[in-house]
């Protein structure tokens, strides 16, 4: 059994209430930080822990915190990115739904470290009921004196607010999130300046994922060095993985970073193998935007080493033979899955979610969707594969925000590893039934 630090209490009845959460050791990190540590010491512990952003990019959290500009007389903000919109990812929802106080505790401790008097939790619109749960938890925390003026009798005061978004994928991009939080259209800003210098209302801001903020609590409780002992190399600590797809036991699992991918998929403790005794065909390891890998490459790297669930091991071989840990949205596909159909689903999503600010993403995502629709309609030609490849290469890296890449990578990887499947469909001119898509969305092509 791997160690669990975030959701070890998730089966305790009533853990969503402050009373039960407190009885199981909750809010200990706030007590420890506020009473015995200076803000800089908390930041140091996070630095020592080697915690990396759990939202997808994997940027070291301590380093991000240390970039925060601290000019005199200007407020600083902590914003929690709970706009978990990457398809295949649902770990933050689980955490907020079951143990909302873990997030609030992390918000208070992190805000103390950053010197933020106000913090915001930006929750996506689709998680409306989750927002209610978190709001209720915040109200409880206010009542018990964990939030508000002079927390625990110290001179640290903190206010935490929940803001519900409109339900846009793009608002998970930190600057688009800030725009949306300010009440504007959720368009990503052009960087620099980065939020650490000019973020929310032009003030220095740190934007962190739910899981990252929640992970600050065990780090403060056990000490950064102790936390860094879990995991391998630069991938320290535990990570929540949202496992879905054709597996026996889909769900949210907390793993110690460094678990072999093979063990994660086939062991009873985690996914429990492929359902119906089928063979595995491919895995999307970190949410829909990371490159898809076929079975032989997800289980073993190109060098023949077993692949582990770490940032480095999954990234081994670059995009040629590797992928990314991303947000931990682990989607497993069995042998019957059509990669082209799956890619169409992803691409349709990115087309639908593009904000329309910059031209490569606005026009390119729609174009790719239409070409993939041709494959499904049985009207595609073999040259369309080349065209698709060319379009994705012209979107990647030319856009304001990473949505362009997120849309281009899955297309590139699917063609890189499963080109024959595209060619076969183009040759056979067979119609693939996608009528259920048309019922759900109006597909233009």
């Amino acid at each position, binding site marked *: 059994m791997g160690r669990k630090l975030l959701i070890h209490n998730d089966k305790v009845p009533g853990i969503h209430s402050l009373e039960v959460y407190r009885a199981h050791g909750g809010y200990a990190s706030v007590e420890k930080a506020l009473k015995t540590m200076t803000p800089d010491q908390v930041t140091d512990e996070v630095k020592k822990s080697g915690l990396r952003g759990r939202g997808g990019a994997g940027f070291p959290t301590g380093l991000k915190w240390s970039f925060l500009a601290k000019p005199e007389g200007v407020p600083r903000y902590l914003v929690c990115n709970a706009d978990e919109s990457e398809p295949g990812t649902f770990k933050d929802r689980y955490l907020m739904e079951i143990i909302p106080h873990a997030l609030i505790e992390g918000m208070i401790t992190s805000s103390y470290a950053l010197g933020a008097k106000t913090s915001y939790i930006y929750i996506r619109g689709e998680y409306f009921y989750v927002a209610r749960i978190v709001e209720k938890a915040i109200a409880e925390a206010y009542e018990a004196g964990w939030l508000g003026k002079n927390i625990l009798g110290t001179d640290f005061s903190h206010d935490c607010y929940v803001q519900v978004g409109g339900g846009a994928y793009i608002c998970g991009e930190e600057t688009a999130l800030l725009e949306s939080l300010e009440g504007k259209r959720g368009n990503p800003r052009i960087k620099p300046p980065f939020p650490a210098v000019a973020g929310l209302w032009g003030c220095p801001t740190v934007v962190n994922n739910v899981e990252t903020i929640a992970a600050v609590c065990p780090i403060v409780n056990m000490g950064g060095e102790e936390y860094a002992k879990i995991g391998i190399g630069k991938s320290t600590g535990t990570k929540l993985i949202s496992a879905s797809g054709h597996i026996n036991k889909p769900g949210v699992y907390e793993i110690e970073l460094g678990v072999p991918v093979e063990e994660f998929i086939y062991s009873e403790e985690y996914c429990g193998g492929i359902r119906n005794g089928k063979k595995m065909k491919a895995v999307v390891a970190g949410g829909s935007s990371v490159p898809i890998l076929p079975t032989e490459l997800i289980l073993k790297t190109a060098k023949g080493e077993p692949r582990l669930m770490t940032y480095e091991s999954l990234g081994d071989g670059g995009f040629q033979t590797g992928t990314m840990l991303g947000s931990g949205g682990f989607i497993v596909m069995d042998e019957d899955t059509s990669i082209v159909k799956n890619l169409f689903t992803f691409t349709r999503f990115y087309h639908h979610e593009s904000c329309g*600010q910059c031209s490569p993403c606005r026009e390119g995502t729609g174009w790719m969707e239409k070409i993939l629709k041709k494959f499904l309609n049985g009207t595609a030609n073999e040259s369309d594969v080349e065209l698709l490849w060319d379009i994705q290469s012209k979107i990647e890296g030319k856009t304001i925000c990473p949505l362009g890449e997120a849309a281009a990578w899955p297309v590139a990887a699917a063609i890189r590893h499963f080109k024959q499947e595209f060619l076969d469909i183009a040759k056979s001119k067979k119609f693939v039934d996608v009528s259920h898509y048309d019922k759900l969305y109006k597909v233009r092509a």
Partner: protein
Amino acid sequence: MKVTIDGKEIDVPKGTTILQAARMIGPEVAPPAMCYYTKLKTSGGYCRTCIVKVTQGSTANPNPMPKPVASCRTEIMDGMVVENFISPDLLEARKGVVEFLLINHPLDCPVCDQAGECKLQDLGYENGSAKTRYEFKRREYEMIDIGDKIKLHMTRCILCYRCVKVCDQITDNRVHGVVHRGDASEISTYIEKIIDNDFSGNVIDVCPVGALTDKTFRFKQRVWFTKPVEAHRKCTKCSGKTRVWLKGDEVLRVTARKDQWDEVEEFICNECRYDHKKTSDWTIEGPSHVNRHSVISQNHYEHLNDLKLQILKQQKALGFMEINKRP
């Protein structure tokens, strides 16, 4: 601060963007820009045509930047080395951006009032390919009147946000913005509202394509048959310095004066723009200098032979038969 663009070095003050530095050197290194506008704050960064390759970030950090950057929004660092026209990769990337801008743009240049002074035409001519790879139905919208003098033809829009910035920054009571998202985005006004202020006409001048056109000039004349002259009048609202487009003695339209980069020098008021269509209203200073780089000029002036060769080459590459060899 020193910056090298396409091998040409220049010393510029801190805070200058790559695009501005390139324009200081000259048109031979200046990247094209469809959305950036010097006089509008926070403009630029959207169209991605001005992307450049930074092969050395600065003297202090000589690493190249991993991706092409939007030159209009990237400030230069001391010792930066930038590649624009000398980098084949970058030109290929720019060609991609131009293709994206064109896939949903209608091919209605023959009936578009902007033709001849259209930035997208020029851009497509310089960086586009002769044949489209896009085989789907292009995006279409109904034409809308915004105010009694401005026509919005959203089908032609490339979403450069310049008009949004004009309405935001040089006029009050903003009623104009972008609605919807992705490739369904459109420029629009608040429901039932029109743009009603003294400087609203400037959105026509900043529009790089024919999406916003002057209703008093629509379908009157092709721009290349009109003669632009610099003129002025006494105006209480603006400087009164304008460019008047004449056909014979008739004033067909009035626009703001534009500089070398096709950007407005001084924004003008609606009174000057729409209400003074008599030659006697204006003191004419002299003929305007028109930059002869547009598509239309190409056909008429010095490069005609080059152009014919180029077209022939492209046609051959596409498998067209030469006209005189056709059966």
